[in-house]
Every structure is written in C-alpha cells, then in structure tokens.
C-alpha cells in the first residue's frame, strides 16, 4: 500500500510538475551529421536521465532535438520557435549558425550553448549570451602547439584546416602562439574532403614539415594520415577536438597510430567515473555500440547538463523559468555557474568574463588502436596571453 502511494505520488508529481522546454537544433542529417547524430542522442539521454533521477529541481524538462541539416536558416527558424514558446535557453550546434544568430541572441537575451567551440562565438560583439561547453578551438590548437614545442623544439608545422570559419578560427592565435613557442608555421592549407592528398603531403614534405596540425573533421584527416603512411613520410599528425577521436580510429585504422589529439572529454573505454556514467546511460537507453564509442555522445550530454543545471538553479531561487523573465533568470544563473556534472576532465565554471565551461584539456595519443592520455588536464596560459593579452 505504501509503495503504491509512493508510486502514485511520483506519477502525480511528474504530471503536475511545471514543464520547461529545451530545444537543441543541429545536424542529425546532412553535413557533419556524423557528429550531430550522437550529440543529439546525448542531449536526449541526459534529459531523460535528469528527469528520471530528479536532477531538475522538480521541473519537467522537455528536451526536443531538431534536425536543422546544418542549414543556418533552419537553425534560425528553430531558435525563433523556441523563443516564441518561452524557452529559457537554447542548445545550438554549428559555427555558422551560432555566428549568424549572435545579434539575435544578444537582442533577445537567450542563453545559447553551441557545439561549435569557435572563439568568435564568445568574442565581442554580441557575445554576452553565448557559452562554450569546453575550451575553444583556438585553445585546443595552441595546447597542441605547446605539446609539439616540448616534444620537438623549433618544429616545422603545417596547419591543415577546414575551408570555413570553423576551420580558420584558430589560425590567427596559432600563428601568434607559434612565434612565442619558437615553432615555425610553414603553411596554412585549407583542405576539403578529397580522395587523395598526395600533392599536399609531398609539398609539405618538400618544405620540411614535421607536424601537421588539423582543425578539421575526421573524414579528410583520416584520408590524409592514410596517404602519409602510404607515402612513407616522416610527418606526425595532431588534431583538435573534431579532427580526432574514435571516428578517426575507425576511418584510418593503423595509420592513425601516434595521432596526437586534444579534447576535454574522456574516452569511452577509460576506467573513470565519467566514462562509466556515459556507458551506463547509453546502455540504459539502449543506444548502439557506435553511440557509446562516440565522443560526441558525452558532448551532447554536457551541453544538456549545463542548461538543465542553470534552469534548475533559477527555479530553486524562486525565479520564473519561462518567457522573458525565465531567460533573464537562467542567464543570471549561467554567470555564476560552478559545478561538476562529471562528464569532462574538469568542472564547468562560468562568470561574466569567462564564457568557457570546462577550461581544461588533455592531450591524448593513438596507441594500440585507442586514444590514451599523455598529459594531465591543463589550461593553456599561452592561449590567454595571445588571445586576451593577459
């Protein structure tokens, strides 16, 4: 009888709980859907888990994942729909979509958490309401250059970047950092997805390039490292968050051995509570093996966790969590957010001047078919020096 009463109370509680909508708009299909698909699943699963485990402060968070097909117009439509409905925060995705929406985000004052770690998302102008979940691409690339400078002082480096704002984002800071580290950036090459990179690689080899640092997606990087192996080139490869990871291992196989990668997330097979939690959620919600292996799955979880925590805190503070007042209340909570959802290598901390959640990164290296950490979590001081001048 007692059990039935408890169950009834829970069901009634959930039914009566205030509903708060939280939308994610990203590429479940179309370009970059190899990341977006798993990111969306991460958002969905963390949301279900948070509701089921009472991590929402008595609210019922209704998460919606929308496929914008990597199309900015669709992202904007979804954002406007969320705005009209009174959502207090928005989970975004692409660099282009975020940069395009920045003026509107600023105008309406909606907390916006993208999957793009472009530093321009949180740089002025119109940067008050955009919050990166983890360190920016610029900081990631500089962290790699710092690692390279330690491994091979005075190394000759080529940057191979995606031909888009996403790819070009870290280039100016990387050039400044390289000058300070005594590294020579020989060339910045924009590279799309191709079938053969012999010409690029041979040219790099002729220029004496020793390291290629990628700010790209895993597909072209995999072909590049495979071609470099076939050509027998003595060049090492390193990449920022979206350039490496399990996707790269799957596509490049043995050729990825030795690839240096930087990210703020744990690997799915690591023996740490964060990875165990991600595996638990994946199994709980019957996700396939490729989801559990993807680094984009915990990335989606982290974005959802940040937004839900801010909404919960606003609600607990007795503030409204929907409409204009809800947006303002959630934003105020974001500015002081300091918590550890246990999904990345450091806690999430935001302030008025710091719009990067997890400030720490780790360098990993592909060894024996998996990425293993070769550094402790750290923050790049050099990034702050070259980007902010402090």
């Amino acid at each position, binding site marked *: 009888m007692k059990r039935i009463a408890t169950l009834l109370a829970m069901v009634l509680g959930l039914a009566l709980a205030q509903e708060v909508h939280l939308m994610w708009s990203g590429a479940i299909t179309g370009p970059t859907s190899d990341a977006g698909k798993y990111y969306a699943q991460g958002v969905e699963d963390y949301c279900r888990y948070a509701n089921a485990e009472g991590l929402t402060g008595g609210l019922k968070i209704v998460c919606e994942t929308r496929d914008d097909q990597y199309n900015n117009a669709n992202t904007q439509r979804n954002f406007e729909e969320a705005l009209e409905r009174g959502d207090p925060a928005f989970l975004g995705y692409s660099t282009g979509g975020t940069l395009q929406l920045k003026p509107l985000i600023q105008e309406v004052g909606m907390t916006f958490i993208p999957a793009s770690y472009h530093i321009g998302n949180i740089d002025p102008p119109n940067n008050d309401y955009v919050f990166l979940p983890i360190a920016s691409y610029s900081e990631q690339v500089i962290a790699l250059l710092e690692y390279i400078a330690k491994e091979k002082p005075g190394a000759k480096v080529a940057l191979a970047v995606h031909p888009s704002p996403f790819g070009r984002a870290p280039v100016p800071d990387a050039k400044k950092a390289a000058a300070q580290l005594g590294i020579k950036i020989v060339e910045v090459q924009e590279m799309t997805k191709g079938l053969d990179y012999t*010409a690029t690689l041979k040219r790099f080899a002729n220029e004496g390039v020793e390291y290629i640092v990628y700010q790209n997606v895993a597909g072209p990087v*995999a072909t590049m490292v495979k071609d470099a192996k*076939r050509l027998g080139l003595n060049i090492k490869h390193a990449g920022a968050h979206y350039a490496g990871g399990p996707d790269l291992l799957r596509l490049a*196989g043995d050729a990825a051995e030795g690839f240096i990668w930087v990210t703020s997330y744990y690997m799915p097979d690591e023996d740490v509570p964060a990875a165990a939690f991600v595996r638990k959620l994946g199994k709980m919600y019957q996700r396939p093996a490729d989801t559990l292996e993807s680094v984009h799955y915990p990335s989606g979880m982290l974005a959802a966790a940040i937004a839900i925590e801010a909404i919960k805190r606003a609600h607990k503070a007795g503030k409204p969590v929907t409409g204009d007042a809800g947006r303002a209340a959630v934003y105020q909570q974001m500015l002081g957010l300091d918590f550890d959802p246990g999904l990345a290598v450091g806690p999430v901390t935001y302030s008025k001047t710091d719009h990067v959640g997890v400030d720490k990164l780790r360098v990993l290296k592909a060894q024996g078919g998996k990425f293993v950490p070769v550094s402790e979590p750290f923050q790049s001081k050099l990034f702050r020096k070259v980007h902010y001048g402090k």
Partner: protein
Amino acid sequence: MTYFLQLVISGLVVGSIYALAALGFVLIYKSSRVINFAHGQFIAVGAFVVYALVAYLGVNVWLALLLSLVSTALLGFLVEKLFLKPLVGQPIISVIMVTIGLASLIDGLVHLTPLGGGNFSLPKFLPEGGIAFLGVSVSYPQVLAVFLTAVFLLAFGWFFQRSTLGAAMRAVADDQMAAMSLGVSVEHVFALAWAAAGITAAAAGFIVGTISGINLEGLVAIGLRVFPVVILGGLDSIPGAVIGGIIIGVLENLATGYLDPLVPGGGTSEVFPFLVLLLVLWFKPHGLFGTEEIERV
C-alpha cells in the same frame, strides 16, 4: 621531376575514380536525357550495402561487392519503373525535380538505418602499402580503382558496340522515335540504363568507401563532384566521362602541388579545374566529346 610525375599519376588515379562515378551519370543521360541528381545517393547505397553485408553478415568483401552491384542495379531498375516511367513525355524540369526528390528520399531512408550519419570503414581486404615505381607511390585501393574503371569501360564499350541490346540503347540515344518505329522498347532501354548506372555507382561507392571511409555525406559529395567531369567530357559520352575525369583529377593535383603555395590558404584545386572547364566550354559548348545538337528550322 619525380614530384611532377607523382602529381600526374595521383591525378590519373583520382580521375579514374571520378570517371567510374561519372559513368552511371552518362549512361542515364545518354539513353534518356535525364540528369540524375540522386547519383551520389546511388553511390552511397552501393557502399553501404557492401559494408552492411561484410560487417553484419560476415560476407566476403568480393562477394559483398557482387551482391551490391546486383542490389543497386535492381534499385536503378525499380526507380526507373516507379518514378521515371510515369514521367515520359513530361517537361524535363519535372523529371529533374523527381531525381532531386529521390535524392532526399534515399538520404532519409539511409538515415533511418544504423548506418546513417556514422563513419565506417571496411575491414582490410587489400595488402598494406602500394605500388612504387620511379619514386611514385600508388596505394592498392587506388590500383583497384583504375582496374575497375578499365573493366567497366571495356565492358560497356563492348556492350554498346557488339551486343544487340547495346545497339538498341544507342539507337534510343540517337533518336527515340526512330528507335520505337523499329520496334525497340524504349521503356526497357531506359530501365536497363538505370540498372547499369546503379552497377557503376556501386563500384564507385565501393572504391570511395575503401579509400576514404564510408560516410553518407562524403559518398554523396562524390556524386556532385562528377558534374564538372561530365560537363567537360560531354554529358552523353562514355569516353568523355573517362577523359573528363582524368583531366579534372590531374588538374586538381597540379593545382594543389604548384598553385596552392602561391595562394594564402591554398584550396586552388577547388577552383582551377572549373576555370579550365569554362575555357573549354567557351570553345566546345557541348564538352570535349558531347554530341553537338544542331536544330534547323
């Protein structure tokens, strides 16, 4: 000199993959004057069928390729029967819109499977490394690409020149009304062309998947990348597809090798072949080997 040779050889190899991907495009246009905007999706389906058979059912890679060729031939045949046949005699824009819709439909269907949106690669079935000569290196998947392109080219060459069905297809391509008056089943020819295009698409998908991994967007992109190839070679010319593919492949590589260092950020391989294409079309508006259609009033 070795550098130049490497760029040219690599360009030839990439060009032969473009040619293989472009063959199906040309086959359809040649017989039915339809531009198939879903060709990239056919390429993707071919690669995914091979991967699914190998990864989920443990089928041998070569047998999987064979089954994939059959599957995409069947897909092409069914697409023609279900979607294109009712449009015979309708404005060409309607047909084009149907192929664009078909592309979206196939994209959506692939995304409903566990394969949509992921990155996959076939298990190793070729030896490591590749062939090296005169300081030039070509990987085994690339050798396979050249071999498959040559096989398909010879097979289609023989088919069109020597077989009765091939002659019927040529007749339909030349003049549909005249062919019909001679008792050639135009409907049958159209369906056969779509099936043949499906076969070449699967072969191209298999090769691209082997070289750069299996991902829907990447495979579909190859289908779009062959547009300049077929326009350069001539939309209705099989030798044109091969030569156009090779020219584009070599130009891309030479641009990367020699022009990229002169341009900040590089990326000239994306532009330079199009400049050459524009130049060629200035003098040869129907492409290098396309049929020059002269209408007299």
